[in-house]
């Protein structure tokens, strides 16, 4: 009877334990990505990745139909200014916090068509900053650290997409 109680207790704890592990897993994976990314590129700078192929193994499920630019950020030293040229084809700027949530983003599609041909300027501020202290497009990160990802369509004429990425910038405001 005592042995059975032990077994049931272990099974119950293990069942609940998987949820604790699941809770920790996204943060753990993002920490790995953050630190590995920091070795490859400096923090708070834009890194343009080569077009994805079978050798692209940093992030799962890369799209071969997109060009990616990433800025791994740490807002401990203050806000960042992200400037990006918006091409005619699909473009998006997405922000991820350290638990993988895509907490903010913008694109040049549908009702955001007006961005095409413009230079988007976004001030990215930390969780303790006051958005009212800044002008223009302001995005508040829920965590001090995170990742900003630019996606630009690589289908069709790729040169314009690459040029747009190369003219984009991420750095201290």
């Amino acid at each position, binding site marked *: 009877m005592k042995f059975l109680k032990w077994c049931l207790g*272990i099974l119950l704890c293990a069942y609940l334990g*998987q949820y604790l592990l699941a809770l920790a897993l*996204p943060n753990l994976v993002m920490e790995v990505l953050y630190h590995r990314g920091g070795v490859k590129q400096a923090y708070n700078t834009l890194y343009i990745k080569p077009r994805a192929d079978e050798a692209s193994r940093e992030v*799962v499920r890369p799209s071969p*139909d997109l060009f990616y630019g990433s800025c791994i950020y740490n807002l401990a030293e203050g806000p960042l200014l992200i400037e990006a040229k918006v091409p005619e084809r699909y473009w998006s700027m997405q922000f991820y916090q350290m638990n993988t949530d895509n907490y903010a983003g913008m694109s040049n599609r549908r009702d955001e068509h007006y961005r095409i041909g413009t230079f988007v300027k976004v001030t990215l501020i930390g969780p303790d900053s006051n958005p009212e202290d800044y002008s223009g497009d302001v995005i508040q990160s829920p965590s001090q650290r995170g990742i900003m990802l630019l996606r630009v369509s690589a*289908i069709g004429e790729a040169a314009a997409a690459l040029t747009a990425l190369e003219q984009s910038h991420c750095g201290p405001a």
Partner: protein
Amino acid sequence: MKVIRVLAAVLLILALSIFFLVRNIGSGLGAMSVQNGNWVTNVSTGSTDAGIMLKATIAIGGLLASTRENSMYYRLNSVDGQALRLNCRYRVDGNDYDADWWSITAYGWDNFLIPNPQKRYSFNNENILRSPDGSWVIYVAAEEQAANWLPVGPSGAPSWRKRSGHNFDLLLRLYTPGKAYLERPHSAPLPRVILESCS
């Protein structure tokens, strides 16, 4: 003796927790997943509303996924209950979809692009060869096919790490999807995938 027993119990709990988690993640996109034919999606992908298990699944198999307003992801790893295999040929029939643009990409069981000499990993609405009426057919197979061949083969990761039943899967990305996908993801039009033959 009691300390050893407690320590063993803790280790067993940890091992079983990992086992349950791996099994749960391997089973798909969680309780909020939506089935549309053989395709599966989850409307909470990337969202702050996503549940614990979905976030864990995304962290392993779809890190940095966007929310559905930006792009929707439909995944297919089996046809009529049969896992996708490298020794079979699949036919994907489709047309155009209410989205800014779309692509279909083949990924190995390791969630990365499949090595192939052709360096062809996907088709999209622009590079696909179509019939005069705009419809198209993709053949997914390890052996060379006629037009619109999406080659598959062994994944890049060592095979001892394989835990899933399928050898590869297909991912349909719909960028800036229309209302049908946002409001009725279970019935919106999607490509049809047919198992044609196996060797």
